[in-house]
């Protein structure tokens, strides 16, 4: 804590971007929670607050002109980190025509082909084979891209995980499987349903590199994912990474999260990913409190605007009920 972390190897503009992306996600999710409370948003709404460093740090390591991102239903952050506008995401949460999925997908099904963000999936583990298939296409076309496939500590026990990693390895597919271990699958502490505490050991069942890293420091995530994706591109192999993180809110808006202690939550909040980067940057004279306030104000404004945009957008027409079933 006391010692200053040396950030000299990073470009300031880049650091500002990481910080801004995390703050935007934080403020956007807070807005989502607020709108959910006002019943502007319904159904399942899974917030990412506390985990910002994972999506931001790992997606910052990608080139989204060739690389792809797929994740589960806790996908607002990944969408924003891929570059979707807060407007198009909030409009989707509102179920409006201007949403990134035309109001038909909702919170769990955010897509954006332009940014290679291929969802968003509501079935735990269901997107792991799909993401593997996207990596298959990259290999089939001899492209240079990499797929990041995010899933949780609950999803890793699904058979789809086992089947996918084996095929990814025998076909040398360029994909990094990232288990976002936020400690809980709904109300279940991950150790209660897992025969291993360190998921990275599972990589050896598929003879692929595996690593467990800290997910509260966005720069650690960025460095490790950069190195691993580099390795994937160079050695034509899939890889696995467990990123340890924590979600501050309940599993979804309807979960009071009674299954964990206040102390546990407070302890993690001391490791807040935004505070960590902010302080490191201040220590390195790359940021001032005022500059941070500016960034925060800006992100709050963007989130507020996204709500205005969503509110002013039209509902999809009734006719769209019958569209997009088949092309």
């Amino acid at each position: 804590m006391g010692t200053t972390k040396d950030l000299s190897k990073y470009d300031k503009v880049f650091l500002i971007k990481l910080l801004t992306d995390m703050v935007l996600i934080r403020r956007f999710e807070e807005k989502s929670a607020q709108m959910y409370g006002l019943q502007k948003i319904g159904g399942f709404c899974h917030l990412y607050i506390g985990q910002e460093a994972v999506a931001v740090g790992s997606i910052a390591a990608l080139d989204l002109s060739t690389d792809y991102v797929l994740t589960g239903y806790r996908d607002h952050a990944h969408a924003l980190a891929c570059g979707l506008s807060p407007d198009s995401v909030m409009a989707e949460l509102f179920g409006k025509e201007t949403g990134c999925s035309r109001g038909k997908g909702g919170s769990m099904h955010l897509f954006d082909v332009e940014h290679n963000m291929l969802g968003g999936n509501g079935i735990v583990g269901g997107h792991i084979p799909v993401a593997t298939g996207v990596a298959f296409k990259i290999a089939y076309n001899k492209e240079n891209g990499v797929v990041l496939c995010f899933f949780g500590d609950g999803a890793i026990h699904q058979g789809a995980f086992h089947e996918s990693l084996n095929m990814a390895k025998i076909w040398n597919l360029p994909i990094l499987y990232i288990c976002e271990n936020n400690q809980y699958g709904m109300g279940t502490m991950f150790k209660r349903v897992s025969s291993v505490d360190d998921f990275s050991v599972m990589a050896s069942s598929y003879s692929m590199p595996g690593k467990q890293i800290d997910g509260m420091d966005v720069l650690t995530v960025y460095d490790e994912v950069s190195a691993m994706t580099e390795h994937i591109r160079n050695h034509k192999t899939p890889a696995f990474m467990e990123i340890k993180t924590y979600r501050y809110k309940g599993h979804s808006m309807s979960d009071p999260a009674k299954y964990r202690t206040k102390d546990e939550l407070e302890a993690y909040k001391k490791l807040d990913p935004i505070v960590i980067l902010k302080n490191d940057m201040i220590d390195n004279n790359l940021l001032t409190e005022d500059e941070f306030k500016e960034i925060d104000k800006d992100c709050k404004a963007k989130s507020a605007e996204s709500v205005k945009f969503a509110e002013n957008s039209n509902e999809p027409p009734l006719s769209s009920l019958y569209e997009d079933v088949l092309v």
Partner: protein
Amino acid sequence: MPVIQYREALRQAMDEEMARDETVFLMGEEVAQYNGAYKVSKGLLDKFGDRRVIDTPITELGFTGIGTGAAMAGLRPIVEWMTLNFAILALDQVINNAAKMLYMSGGKLNIPIVFRGPNGPAEYLASQHSQALQTMLVHVPGIKVVAPATPYDAKGLLKSAIRDNNPVVVLEAEMMYAWTGEVPSEEFLVPIGEADIKREGTDVSIITYSKPLKMAMEAAEQLAQQNISAEIVDLRSLRPLDEKTIFESVRKTNRAVIVDESWPMVSVASHVGYLISSQCFDYLDAPVELVTSEDVPMPYNHSLELAAQPSVDKIIKAVKKVLYID
């Protein structure tokens, strides 16, 4: 008579049967410490302990098969699927093992197991979380499928399911869990395989089951004000199907509307529609009408998702159609 919620009725059924038979246990995602994703198993962990109320990892195929194996070896598992949407992953164990074990073993190994969970759309849950999947199960011989729509039927049918020596699927619904109704405090069972006339009528038979029952009752109310007397047949059990009660009603009213919240093609609705058409051929004064969900995945937008499902208005329209009114 005590008025309780549908979820409480299910809880009572499990509570009573677990107390009655030590081989009965409950397993599923979040059923123990979290008291159930929809609080159906509230308090059961405290009462019966973690030997008999068991949280599973998110592995529908695996724990459905484990339940099947445990049943094969003599226990009486209740396997909770958090929703039927996720149970698609488990269908191989249900169809290829639970439903066929007795037959493949020449009658040696029966599978006394209950699979239960919410089925059908709730609200704002989009395509993957809003499916009514009864077709996939009712099609398959070797299992029973029930779909209670009242707290009374829920308790009585779940108790019968737990005591049944065959695999029984109990279809519930998120939206029904908070529904309330009278449930006697004395022990009772509702036999599997018997439909129930939820409202007597003479002009038209509205045949339905599960969540749409409420809409059908509401529609019958409004129709009554227009002097149209609708009889409501609640199937309750989908496999086996109580054809006798269905046919008796239609032979009396000579008209039938079937309300089913699943997709229309190859649905329980069209199957019952066929049975009525062929077995009541000389009694029907009009073609059987179906009111189902639209043949589309479920959209997230709320007005669209409501438009995709059966409604009181759609039912009334269908009834008027079979009555050739305006």
